[in-house]
């Protein structure tokens, strides 16, 4: 689905690609770095420009790259009026910031890093405003939290920078988590994760019983991002960032993301009482609170930060009103706020850059020293105050107009009065910005003598100031953009008329009283300031830190309780939790009646069962008697093999017996070097607890097993049974499944086995080059050693057995495709044959006669299996497709040749190599423990003795 929006994914990806460049280009100089950072933004802006006419004409552009359409996951983008407005703002201001930062950053700041972060952030923001899929939107949303963390903490040598970044991440990231929940609920109600679909289902969503939870969760995300009360506190602390970051994040982008989201969701979520009371009230409180605090901030950036909080509150409130006129005002104010606030931040940055302070108390009289900066600052601050002829006035009037006829719980006064108070304080702090920084006499105690910066530095704010005046004088210029965005927000066809003079309206009086009151406040600033400082007030950062400390303490105690370094505790918790969950699932599902008749129990099965139960009980009771426990484990293994034979699983029985043998050998080898005793250290209480857990878990597993064994089920194995011969050319269905149907699984499994072998080898290498080697050398194991380590009878017997065992192995291998057997079993059988030689004549003696490296054997096995699979490609078939045919070679009977057999050969080699490498590694330890290598195959060799006796006789 690409109707005209083909460029959208490219626009979305451009900043991310561009982020790779500045880090490299910084080597070519700072200007080159900045220029290359601007290029992707510029290209994206041009592309956006080509799409603009269609969108302005009312079209909505789409582009979709399907990823997992079954799950509703696709990278889909769309561009409507709102998206175009925000994308334009993000890219346009991004370009200005790139220019400004080139001059702002000092030579010590890593500029490449800065531009890389900036572009990452830009990409994330851009993604939010043009995503169609809300899951994609959420990803971009989280990306803005992460990349803004990097930007705010850019000066990571400053503790304020680090703390501010952490706080912003904690607050906005936490809100983001809530929003994920809300969005998922929303997608669930709408039955689609595409915004376009969701936006069309406003009525269904508002009627849903899940509306309120979804609303609250989504608003949590929007409020935290847009710094709404009570989450407003992170924004002032984020001012520790370099000024270009503040100007970008806190005027045009990051904090506007929340406003954008509320505007985006406006057609779906607004129009209910809950929406009005939550959103409008929060916005109102934030607007007034931010404006009041801003008046008493002496740091220029802190003043602007709280002013931003206040203006965000204003936009939130307007969206909260839920009327179309208010939505128009909100969209218009988004544009206006961007122009004056970004310019003001940059002005503050210039002042800081030139005067080396941002403290208003140390400034004043700058109008004479830096006239250009003062002009820019004054114009934009007047716009912020809402003075006529500047654009801030227009949207503020519209806001006051809307507020003047809004009832709050039937009360007609609260909203207009508070809105006026907010506007009043807004005038006061704006005027303070002008008069206390630029006005007054020139001082002689600036930390540095200020003067106007180079053109490049004030060019960006100057452009914005131009817009402030243009829109302020000729508001109809902004009309098409506002119309387009407002239509996209409301989904209606509106024709707003933006004009300077609305006649004598309540808003005009409110505005006039706000200006008058603001001037009075400024005059009274000094006494008020003293009063403010004396008054007790909650410190948001202290509260936040206290909450955070409490959370950390709780999670610490929780972690320490569950996770104290004792594996037995984790396992106990794991087992109990699993049983509890299993119980819940078992009882919750409603168990169908048993359908399968039970098989009769022959006496031999009862005997086997008794053996198994008694042996298991004895292992548990005697686990400290190590040798006895191993013998009992062997008994259990053999009993289970017998069970496999009885229950129609000859392949499993074969494998179990072979594995049992090598396992016992392995454990015996290891036991020699393990401590000789297991001290009894768990007390009775602990043993009882563990016993209870074990019994409950065992009972649960038994019940579960019994439950499914007595019920029928539908299996996919009928396919395997039907096709084993036709498709795989084998009669042994288990083997055909292993080497053919599920060959890819088997391929993975032999690789795992090979890796296990190599892991053991590597562990041993590390071990024997560490302190363990010294310990082994210094421990005396000779007391436990047999005097007759290589008895003649065993040597002779194993030598005779060797060819027989190998022949059995080959036989089992060859018949595997049609009869029980195959590569796995054959590999194990041959391993046992080889192990017998090691046991009889000793490790060293045998190893000297061993020509093939086991590592190589693993590699060869995996390679053979893999190449067999690849071979299928040559025949134009998918990986691991097998082929087979029948060959007749007289005098032998006709026999089958299948590529699966080659694959099985790979399995065989890997199993053999893996098993041998494991045991070989373990036995290498004994070399370090001082075991000598015998020269002959046995300790006492009668054939060598005879000649000497004869000599004696002579």
């Amino acid at each position: 689905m690409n109707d005209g929006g083909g460029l959208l994914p490219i626009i979305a990806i451009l900043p991310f690609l561009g982020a790779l460049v500045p880090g490299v280009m910084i080597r070519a100089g700072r200007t080159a770095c900045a220029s290359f950072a601007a290029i992707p933004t510029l290209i994206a802006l041009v592309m956006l420009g080509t799409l603009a006419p269609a969108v302005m004409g009312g079209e909505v552009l789409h582009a979709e790259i399907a990823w997992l359409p079954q799950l509703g996951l696709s990278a889909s983008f769309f561009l409507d009026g709102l998206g175009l407005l925000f994308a334009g703002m993000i890219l346009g201001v991004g370009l200005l910031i790139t220019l400004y930062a080139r001059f702002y950053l000092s030579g010590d700041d890593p500029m490449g890093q800065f531009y890389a972060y900036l572009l990452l952030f830009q990409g994330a923001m851009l993604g939010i405003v043009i995503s169609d899929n809300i899951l994609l939107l959420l990803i971009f949303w989280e990306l803005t939290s992460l990349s803004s963390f990097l930007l705010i903490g850019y000066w990571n040598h400053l503790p304020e920078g680090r703390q501010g970044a952490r706080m912003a991440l904690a607050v906005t990231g936490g809100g983001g988590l809530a929003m994920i929940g809300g969005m998922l609920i929303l997608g669930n109600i709408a039955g689609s994760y595409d915004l376009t679909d969701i936006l069309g289902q406003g009525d269904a969503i508002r009627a849903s019983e899940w509306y309120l939870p979804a609303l609250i969760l989504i608003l949590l995300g929007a409020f935290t991002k847009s710094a709404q009360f009570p989450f407003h506190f992170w924004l002032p602390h984020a001012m520790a960032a370099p000024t270009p970051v503040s100007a970008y994040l806190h005027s045009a982008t990051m904090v506007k993301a929340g406003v954008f989201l509320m505007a985006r969701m406006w057609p779906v979520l607004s129009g209910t009482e809950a929406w009005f009371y939550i959103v409008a009230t929060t916005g109102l409180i934030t607007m007034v609170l931010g404006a009041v605090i801003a008046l008493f901030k002496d740091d220029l950036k802190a003043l602007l930060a709280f002013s931003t909080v206040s203006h965000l509150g204003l936009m939130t409130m307007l969206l909260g009103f839920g009327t179309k006129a208010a939505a128009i005002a909100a969209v218009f104010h988004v544009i206006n706020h961007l122009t004056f606030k970004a310019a003001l931040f940059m002005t503050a940055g210039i002042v800081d850059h030139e005067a080396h302070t941002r403290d208003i108390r140390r400034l004043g009289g700058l109008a004479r020293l830096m006239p250009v900066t003062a002009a820019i600052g004054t114009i934009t601050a007047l716009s912020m105050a809402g003075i006529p002829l500047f654009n801030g006035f227009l949207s503020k009037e519209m806001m006051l107009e809307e507020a003047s006829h809004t009832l709050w719980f039937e009360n007609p006064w609260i909203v207009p009065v508070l809105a006026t108070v907010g506007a009043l304080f807004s005038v006061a702090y704006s005027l303070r910005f002008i008069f206390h920084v630029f006005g007054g006499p020139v001082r002689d105690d600036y930390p540095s003598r200020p003067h106007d910066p180079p053109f490049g530095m004030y060019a960006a704010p100057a452009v914005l100031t131009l817009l402030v005046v243009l829109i302020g004088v000729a508001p109809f210029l902004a009309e098409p953009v506002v119309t387009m965005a407002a239509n996209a927000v409301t989904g209606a066809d509106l024709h707003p008329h933006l004009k300077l003079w609305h006649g004598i309206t309540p808003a005009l009086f409110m505005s006039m009283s706000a200006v008058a009151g603001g001037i009075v406040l400024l005059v009274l600033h000094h006494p008020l300031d003293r009063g403010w400082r004396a008054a007790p007030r909650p410190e948001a950062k202290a509260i936040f830190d206290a909450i955070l400390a409490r959370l950390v303490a709780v999670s610490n105690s929780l972690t320490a309780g569950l996770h104290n370094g004792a594996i037995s505790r984790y396992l106990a918790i794991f087992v109990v939790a699993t049983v509890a969950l299993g119980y819940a699932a078992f009882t919750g599902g409603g168990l169908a009646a048993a359908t399968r008749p039970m098989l009769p129990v022959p006496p031999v099965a009862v005997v086997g069962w008794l053996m198994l139960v008694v042996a298991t009980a004895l292992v548990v009771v005697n686990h400290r008697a190590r040798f006895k426990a191993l013998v009992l484990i062997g008994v259990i293994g053999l009993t289970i093999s017998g069970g496999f034979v009885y229950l129609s699983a000859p392949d499993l029985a074969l494998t179990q017996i072979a594995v049992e043998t090598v396992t016992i050998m392995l454990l015996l080898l290891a036991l020699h070097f393990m401590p000789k005793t297991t001290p009894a250290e768990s007390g009775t209480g602990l043993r009882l607890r563990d016993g209870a857990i074990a019994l409950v878990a065992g009972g649960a597993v038994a019940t579960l097993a019994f439950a499914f064994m007595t019920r029928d089920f539908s299996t996919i194995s009928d396919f395997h049974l039907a096709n084993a011969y036709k498709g795989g050319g084998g009669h042994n269905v288990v083997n055909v499944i292993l080497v053919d149907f599920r060959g890819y699984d088997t391929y993975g499994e032999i690789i795992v086995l090979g890796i296990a072998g190599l892991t053991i080898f590597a562990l041993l290498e590390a071990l024997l080059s560490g302190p363990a080697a010294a310990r082994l050398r210094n421990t005396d194991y000779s007391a436990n050693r047999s005097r007759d380590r290589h008895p003649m009878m065993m040597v002779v017997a194993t030598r005779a057995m060797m060819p027989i065992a190998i022949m059995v192995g080959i036989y089992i291998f060859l018949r595997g495709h049609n009869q029980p057997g195959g590569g796995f079993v054959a590999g194990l059988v041959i391993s046992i044959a080889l192990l017998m030689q090691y046991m009889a004549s000793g490790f060293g003696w045998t190893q000297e006669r061993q020509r093939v490296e086991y590592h190589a054997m693993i590699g060869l096995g995996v390679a053979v299996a893999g190449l067999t699979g690849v071979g299928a490609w040559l025949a134009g078939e998918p990986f691991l497709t097998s082929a087979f045919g029948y060959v007749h070679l007289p005098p032998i009977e006709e026999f089958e040749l299948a590529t699966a057999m080659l694959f099985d050969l790979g399995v065989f080699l890997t199993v053999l190599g893996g098993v041998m490498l494991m045991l070989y590694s373990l036995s290498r330890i004994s070399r370090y423990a001082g075991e000598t290598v015998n020269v002959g195959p046995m300790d006492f060799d009668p054939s060598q003795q005879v000649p000497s006796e004869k000599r004696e006789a002579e």
Partner: protein
Amino acid sequence: MEIIVASAIGVLTAGGIYLILRLRAFPVILGLALLSYAVNVFIFATGRLKVNAPPILRDHGDAIYTDPLPQALVLTAIVISFGMTAVLVMIALGAFLEADHDRIDMTAADTAEATKKETGA
């Protein structure tokens, strides 16, 4: 027969879990061996029990076969569980040789040191 198999699985599980909750390496290895048996038989049993019906194709058409798929899964599981046991034995052995004890829990001193490192940083 089903009761016998189910109870055997239960007994093996209970024994295995009791042993892996012990505090020394060797019983834990034994416990894992028991648990491996239990799990393997459990998976095998998901194919339901049948007597005299091995999944080896025979010529007459109406032959009954047991479900071969769980068997194939268990066959590899048996071999892999050997590999797992071997790695575990090697780790336990290494831990013993390096630390001079085969406790599998952190001692009180280890825990205190680890906490100090976490909070001190």
